[in-house]
């Protein structure tokens, strides 16, 4: 089981250490870790499981913060990694984002949370809703209170009732004047377009996010009009497995507040909403770049915040790139980012220019891969449709809301 958790800032400073068992881990392990990060670079940083001379390390990097957990004995590595991911999710939820300052500023809360989340190296309470009841997240009111009175406790005095019930994700008996449920379909489209411009792979990874404010102990059922298109699914613990197995119906008692009800995947889609046509040619120490972006088939919804990013090859001396719409930026790490926004009606956005290669190079052999970003409100590109949402023991007034959103996930165009 886990023996220790360290939080490292992106400069390698150990911001926090939390020893979990009697087998203490010296923080010199972090020095060892950081030495290797510096000497081996990114390939070491992207290794989630590391065998150091004394310990096995699990690392998860989120927004520059490295979560490092140590163990000396056999345990499922995914358990360690998944737990660290949960910790980072909970922290960023509590602190409204993750960065070095925010963790240092709220180190007491981080300690208290870690103490609730893991006991003797084994996860204890990881359900965000319950944690919120045990340890109050920092908010304006508590901050002001603490300034004025010099004292405010964020530790709850009593045990949340849910820890004892058979539905540990739901706080006991909330009361609402307005009963509301909002269901959002949030989809990410992953696509790969190869050098010949052919669509190699196109699939959608989607989540059903629910925000429920319901009194009492509601029992909801949600069904889809076309569940057969789903390739595979994963559920929040509240979903009952058997109704899904037999009728593809989601039956659940929701946690209070916002949560991810299920995630799903739809494979082998036939088209993408936009096209990106890069044309690169290279000779005589130069490389000409010309990229066109356009809407392929109209969904009737506007496509927002279209961006295009690519890594310039390392052997480039200078780059001169211009576009007819949007702005082009070349960032410090030789990443070129073109933000288009909405596609105008009258013209096709294009990026063109030349890259000058280093003097001894005749031509470029390796062309960059373009990563595309976009956002479409109001449509789920997978075509998944919610049929109905029912509440057993319906209260007098129930407001139901549905929304959909698709954005680009790993959308890549090779050139």
């Amino acid at each position, binding site marked *: 089981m886990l023996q220790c958790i360290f939080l490292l800032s992106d400069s390698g400073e150990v911001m926090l250490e939390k020893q979990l068992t*009697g087998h203490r881990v010296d923080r010199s392990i972090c020095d060892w870790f950081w030495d290797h990060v510096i000497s081996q670079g990114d390939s070491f940083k992207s290794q989630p499981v590391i065998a150091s001379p004394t310990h096995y390390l699990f*690392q998860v990097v989120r927004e520059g913060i490295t979560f490092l957990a140590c163990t*000396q004995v056999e345990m499922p590595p995914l358990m360690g990694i998944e737990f660290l991911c949960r910790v980072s999710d909970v922290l960023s939820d509590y602190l409204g984002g993750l960065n070095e300052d925010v963790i240092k500023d*709220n180190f007491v809360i981080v300690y208290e949370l870690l103490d609730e989340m893991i006991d003797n190296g084994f996860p204890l309470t990881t359900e965000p809703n319950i944690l919120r009841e045990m340890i109050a997240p920092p908010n304006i009111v508590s*901050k002001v209170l603490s300034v004025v009175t010099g004292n405010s406790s964020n530790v709850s005095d009593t*045990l949340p009732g849910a820890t004892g019930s058979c539905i540990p994700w739901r706080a006991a008996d909330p009361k609402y004047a307005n009963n509301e449920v909002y269901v959002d379909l949030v989809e990410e489209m992953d696509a790969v377009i190869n050098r010949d411009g052919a669509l190699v792979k196109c699939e959608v990874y989607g989540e059903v996010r629910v925000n429920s404010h319901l009194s009492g102990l509601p029992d909801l059922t949600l069904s889809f009009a076309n569940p057969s298109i789903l390739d595979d699914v994963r559920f929040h613990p509240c979903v009952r497995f058997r109704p899904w197995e037999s009728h593809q119906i989601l039956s659940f008692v929701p946690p209070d507040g916002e949560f991810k009800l299920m995630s799903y995947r739809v494979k082998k889609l036939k088209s993408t909403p936009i096209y990106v046509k890069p044309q690169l040619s290279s000779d005589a120490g130069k490389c000409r770049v010309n990229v066109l972006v356009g809407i392929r088939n109209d969904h009737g919804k506007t496509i927002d915040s279209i961006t295009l990013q690519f890594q310039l090859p390392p052997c480039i001396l200078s780059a001169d790139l211009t576009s007819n719409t949007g702005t082009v930026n070349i960032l410090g790490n030789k990443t070129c980012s073109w933000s288009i926004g909405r596609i105008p009606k009258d013209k096709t956005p294009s990026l063109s220019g030349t890259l000058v290669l280093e003097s001894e190079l005749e031509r470029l052999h390796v062309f960059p891969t373009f990563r595309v970003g976009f956002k479409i409100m109001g449509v789920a590109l997978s075509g998944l449709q919610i049929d109905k949402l029912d509440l057993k023991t319906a209260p007098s007034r129930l407001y139901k809301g549905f929304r959909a959103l698709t954005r680009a996930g790993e959308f890549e165009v090779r050139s």
Partner: protein
Amino acid sequence: MFPQFGATAETLSKASTMVFRIGTDAHLYDDPDDVNIAPLLDSKYDSEKCEALKRLLALIAQGLDVSNFFPQVVKNVASQSLELKKLVYLYLLHYAEKHPNEALLSINCFQKDLGDPNALVRAWALRTMAGIRLHVIAPLVLVAVSKCARDPSVYVRKCAANALPKLHDLRQEEHNSTIEEIVGILLNDHSPAVVGAAAASFASVCPYNLSLIGRNYRKLCEILPDVEEWGQIVLIGILLRYAIARHGLVKESIMSSLKCSENFHAEKHVSDDNMGLGKESSDSWAYDSESVNMVFRCYIESPDEYLSRSSYANRASFELNGAQFTSGKTNDDVKILLYSTSPLLWSNNSAVVLAAAGVHCIMAPKEDVKRIIKPLLFILRSSNASKFVVLNNIQVFAKAMPSLFAPHHEDFFIYSSDSYQVKALKVEILSSIATDSSISSIFKEFQDYIRDPDRRFAAATVAAIGLCALRLPRMAHICVDGLLALTRQGLFLFSYFVLSVCLDRIKVPAARAMIIWMMGEYSSLGEIIPRMLTTVLKYLAWCFTLEALETKLQILNTVSKVLLGATGEHLSTYKKVFSYLVELAECDLNYNVRDRSRFLKKLLSYNFVSEGVEEITCCHVVVDCIFKKQTREVKAESINYRVYLPGSLSHIVLHAAPGYEPLPKPCSLLLDDFNKPEGTCAIVKGAGDHGTSSDPSDNESASDYDSQHSFTGSSSGAHADDNESSEGNENPDPLIQFSDIGNASEIQDGVFHSSPANLGEISNRALESWLEEQPGSSNPGILEQSQACKSLARISIGDVGRRIKRKSHSLLEAANGNGLKVDYSFSSEISTISHLLVCIEVFFKNCSSETITEITLVDEESNIASNDDVPTLVPMEKISSLEPGQTTRMILQVHFHHHLLPLKLALFHDGEKLPVKLWPDIGYFVKPLPMDVQAFADKESRLPGMFEYTRRCTFAGHIEERNKEFGDSLLNKDKYLAICESLAVKMLSNANISLVSVDMPVEAKLEDASGLRLRFSSEILSSSLPCLITITVEGKCSDPLNLSTKVNCEETVFALNLLNRIISFLVEPAY
């Protein structure tokens, strides 16, 4: 009020960030010690105490040691404020082990809190109390846990389950049965949350006591979907182990179907009838039977068995009999396990999905296994970190059953954002699941990947294309043509190769050799290749000398193959290239390359001279031979490393992590176990006992070594006296004794444990050397290895006993004690009263001119604490009178309870009381445990990993000694002996241990003491656990030496303390 505000808010931007920081604990983290913390802790306001504790936490977070505040913090444990309590607990758990005495003060508060009506308070108290880790309070904690295990609150019961591993971690044998009993109670709990935690404690407390599971098996399976996710991960593993131990393997599963197809031919027919439709579909799937067998065997056998098997190279040793199989169709226990784990494949937690997939892969009938594929592929999307782990597991599944993953090859196409490791894994998986129908699209992808800017990845892709070509001979021409088409594009590929060979010498020669082989093999294929060949061959000849061994051999093969197949115009060019290469190769450093070049030259020279039919066939035989060898090697490569259970850490790091356990032996759990009374159930471990299974190989190899070493021994003409005991020997002449110190276990360490891979390499080399001898030809290889392997000589030191000087400490100076001087030294005597007592020799000397009367030493604290963990003194006899100048020796016996703080004593004489302090020496909390080297190595091998601590230090004692003895006649004393002796004397004078052996490497160079090794053994007085110490020397004889000191002991805290003590006295100069 805002010191941080005024000080730092110089600019507007800073000020704006400060606004967000107001009300947070930012200033506490930035300047934790800008105020005096101590008075805050003693404040009467909770808020001030809170602030002080937050400051302390900030200091802990920053890695500073603030344990000196411990006494003040402990006082606050009684506070009513929950926030304060929480902060105190956080602090307490961090430092309790450093301050056992003060931590004891908090126990009463915990006990009070355990009766609190608030469940949260009870749970926290239990968690903290169990986390303090003091041996003395273990009985109290045990009582508390068993009480909380029946608590009405689920949360408290859950915490009770979590407390059990903490208790078990203290390794107090007498509590084990009670702990297991509580685990049993909690496993039977009706709340799923408790069951999950209980499963976790079962796994760490008593993983072998599967009969405990047997009683609740059904219920556990039914409750499994409701258990919280973390508990599910552990519980799935436990249930799988139980099902295999109880019922054996499922004969319809993939894992066993191929294995036992011969053994169960008759039975198979019966089950085939049952399967009906299932059969047709399953037959259409091709499984890589060798890989499946390999994987399956690895899951079951323990590391020791694996080692013994690989040393024998006996591939078919693993036999299962019919009784070890059950049918998944008829066995209800197996059915319910599969039924209850199948919905978990939809879990949100990727670890749960992987664990459930593992169960299905091992236990499910093969027509049902495909249901794990999609969930496995889905969790690839969850996070970057888990992607790598999941792919690692998929890789093994995909090699064992490529057909299942074949339709999903698109999922393994890479994204540019993937890390190198992920990309390399994906490409490898793609190459193993490619089929005739999918190869064209996969190959198209590969062509894109070759242009990746990451050269390592491009090289991995080339290797993958080679593997595809081998796996799918029909499609090979596509691969080769494609590759060569790339090659033609300005030799772009090769420029990569040259670069990557420079960059990365490990990975690339394999890929390089592969592609060279392909060129030779398909040299007459298509239209482009023959035209390319001359250029390519010239290029190869040009870079021949720079190549790795593997590639060199392959180039020779290729060129000779091309030469044989060549006709017409290019023949003369090929001949020139060939003779040039042979010339180069004959001067090669490696004998393999030289051999092969001569061999090829002889063979082919016939070919040039005469055009006879026999010669040509002969040459074709050679070609066949080359070709076959190559394919065979690649086949064997499919899974040639050890495979560990899916989802385990060992699987990722590719070695057995401490605590890794393979699946239990099928049907090793007998029904009788259920009938035994609970708590005393036999621990049924794998049928193959570790010791016995690895024995034969050890013995055999040991005898090999014996002969080897006796030879070395006699040639160096030294004495050999095996029965020389090392310590307390009266023989004044030290003997250097060349004997078989490389005894069985030593060899095991040196060769078999560490390098199964080496063995494989050797046998490969044996194959490569072409001299197709008998299978036994790998033996010389091993022997050769052993010659290179260190042979050691044992040194006996005779007269150490005499030179041991116990260090004397002063208890009371004459000036302070009115003329009474008291010294003490720790003695190696063993107390006659109790084995827990440490004996101390105390010398009372009267330096005054008057008689001193009524001298006695008593324990000052004995009347304060009645608790039994405080060091106690066995009452000493009174010395009625001490004449001037007289010295009296007394033996004092103290029970230190492993406390390292000075013991406060009161010395009475003439009616006066003087406080004195006795400093405990951890070196004397042990007693000598004589054993031979064999037993030492045996014990050592059982205390690996976390029970082993190593520290380094320098040692200069031998130099001081030599300087001292410079004037003596003993100038020519052997330097090795001097070092050994001074080390041994130092160790034996400072700790109550026994010398086991002193070894030095036989081929040691003059002046170089590296490799010298001293072993000491001892036994902890209180717990009778063995404690082994090994000192290895590095450095020159005449310089200060670098020592690496290793302590192996089950009691890790003790071991660490002991190690620190040893280092401190080794470093301090001789007195």
